[in-house]
């Protein structure tokens, strides 16, 4: 369907009145994107009767220079350069009525180093455009020239590991539960028990900020008592993600500074604070030797449905640019959304220096990260020690595995729960490194480790049949096709 350009040229292009977007220069099938262009891939679902090419050209127009009618003031600018150009439209496989639109944007359209500016164009007005039934931003190619204008993760995976002195295995965490209602003193107890038992991190939940049952200073003080006690009790560096999310930047800076004064290695923020606040906190974190954890609170309101919104892979790219160190990116086997192939794509975006186009993982572009730090993905939500082999297989080594319920819900207490997870993890890493087929022998490896670890035996017993097998609402559109061997 990629027929030729319909662009009207010369003075006819600027005759007053309404002109189709595809004739205004927003549909240029011959355009070859420059290495410096930002490219966006949208899933466009036009209203019935709307020509798909016109709909895709409109997306290019409305996310760049266009308005609904011709304006003569375009002629005061290098308009052809500033127009976003839709250069390719493909029907979405197995999804009648939807189209993939590839749109190229000149780099000059964007302020350097500003996610707010990038997103104001790409997901601005255009998402409410009436001729479309639905619109989804599937992926973006960010040119190296643009990547280089961002700080990137404040710490990065390598330095995080060096700072924590933890190598060769996933990190282990737990979110304190119940997420609301505990007093500072009781909250710190959970943190102490989990860290002493063998976890590396504890975590505030997204909605723990400063409430009547526990104000933030109290939480920070008790948590750091717990962290330091556990550190002295084990000889290992420990941390707890102190959530500094607050109503204003001033409040957040105040909380972050208190966390730093108390010696915390890590703080956390929620995605709902907004892109600019996230970038500010990333700069603060780098300046203060702090690891910055991001909880993706709110993302499912726009990432989960296939037809409308923004794919999480795009959010992950923006967050890597914005500069967070940790990002929740799915578990595959846990209680929250995420099929294995799509999740693999997210993890690659977090951790690789170069993403190769892999349609079956939902990765539509080659993406160079130009040595921008790597982001540590975090797997959280409904996972337990009995799944350790699957987690390691799906998620790899550079990941934080967060067992909240799977630690705190242990029948013998929180320390026992933490120990069960740590022993399961170390046994699995040991077996994998020994060359064993740990994915298939996983249950056997765990059972063997449980022989010398009662807490693990109890954990395996209580959660042995817990799985969350539901159909994913967001999975890749492309399946791998077998290539004949040459």
């Amino acid at each position, binding site marked *: 369907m990629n027929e030729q350009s319909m662009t009207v040229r010369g003075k006819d292009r600027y005759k007053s009145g309404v002109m189709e977007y595809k004739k205004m220069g927003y549909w240029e099938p011959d355009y070859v994107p420059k290495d410096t262009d930002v490219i966006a891939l949208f899933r466009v679902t036009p209203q019935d009767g709307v020509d798909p090419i016109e709909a895709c050209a409109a997306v290019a127009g409305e996310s760049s220079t266009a308005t609904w009618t011709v304006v003569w003031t375009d002629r005061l600018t290098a308009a052809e350069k500033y127009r976003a150009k839709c250069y390719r439209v493909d029907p979405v496989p197995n999804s009648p009525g939807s189209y993939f639109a590839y749109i190229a944007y000149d780099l000059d359209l964007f302020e350097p180093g500003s996610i707010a500016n990038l997103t104001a164009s790409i997901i601005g007005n255009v998402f409410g455009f009436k001729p479309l039934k639905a619109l989804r931003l599937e992926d973006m190619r960010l040119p190296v020239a643009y990547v280089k204008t961002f700080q990137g993760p404040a710490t990065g995976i390598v330095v995080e590991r060096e700072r924590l002195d933890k190598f060769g295995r996933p990190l282990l965490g737990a979110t304190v539960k119940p997420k609301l209602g505990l007093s500072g003193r009781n909250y710190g107890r959970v943190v102490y028990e989990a860290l002493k038992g063998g976890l590396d991190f504890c975590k505030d939940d997204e909605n723990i900020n400063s409430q009547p049952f526990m104000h933030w200073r109290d939480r920070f003080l008790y948590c750091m008592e717990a962290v*330091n006690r556990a550190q002295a009790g084990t000889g290992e560096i420990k941390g707890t993600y102190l959530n500094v999310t607050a109503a204003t930047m001033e409040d957040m800076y105040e909380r972050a500074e208190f966390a730093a*004064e108390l010696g915390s290695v890590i703080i956390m923020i929620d995605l709902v604070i907004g892109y600019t606040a996230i970038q500010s906190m990333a700069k603060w974190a780098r300046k203060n030797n702090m690891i910055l954890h991001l909880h993706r609170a709110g993302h499912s309101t726009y990432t989960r449905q296939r037809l409308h919104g923004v794919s999480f892979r795009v959010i992950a790219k923006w967050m890597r640019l914005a500069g967070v160190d940790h990002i929740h990116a799915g578990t595959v086997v846990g209680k929250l959304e995420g099929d294995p192939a799509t999740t693999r794509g997210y993890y690659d975006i977090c951790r690789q220096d170069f993403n190769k186009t892999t349609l079956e993982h939902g990765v539509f572009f080659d993406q160079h990260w130009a040595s921008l730090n790597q982001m540590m993905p975090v797997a959280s939500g409904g996972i337990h020690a009995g799944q350790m082999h699957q987690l390691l297989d799906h998620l790899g080594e550079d990941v934080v595995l967060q067992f909240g319920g799977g630690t705190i819900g242990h029948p013998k207490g929180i320390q026992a729960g933490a120990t069960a997870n740590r022993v399961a993890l170390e046994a699995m890493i*040991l077996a994998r490194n020994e060359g064993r087929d740990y994915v298939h022998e996983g249950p056997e490896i765990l059972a063997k480790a449980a022989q010398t670890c009662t807490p693990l035996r109890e954990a395996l017993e209580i959660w042995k049949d817990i799985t969350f097998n539901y159909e994913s609402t967001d999975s890749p559109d492309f399946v791998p096709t077998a290539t004949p061997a040459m």
Partner: protein
Amino acid sequence: MRVTQGCFSFLPDLTDEQITAQVQYCLDKGWAVNIEFTDDPHPRNTYWEMWGLPMFDLRDAAGIMKELNDCRRTYGDRYIRLSGFDATHGWESLRISFIVNRPKDEPGFRLQRQEVDGRSMRYTTVSYAVDRPEGSRYE
């Protein structure tokens, strides 16, 4: 207490056979194996003493185990760890690190609290072992 630094501290102490398998894993990945020892296991004591240079060119697990056993003969009363170093661009750091030798008695750490500025606190972790001079800490 038991210092739980490193990759395998929650498992029973590794046998030489198990250590050899991990060394082989490092070699297969192209990493340089490094032996280090210390008598101050403070969690932020980054620079343990090196038992020679990282073994960039020794590609034989048996050879590395011989080095480890030599180190144990001299410093068997201390902590010894093995690590695998990956010089690949973008990593250029350790890929794995685990303890392969411990003192018979691990005295652990004292947590010092300095109460400052109202309820605020400054915490300091001190190895009990460093109360004695270097070299005679685990005698």
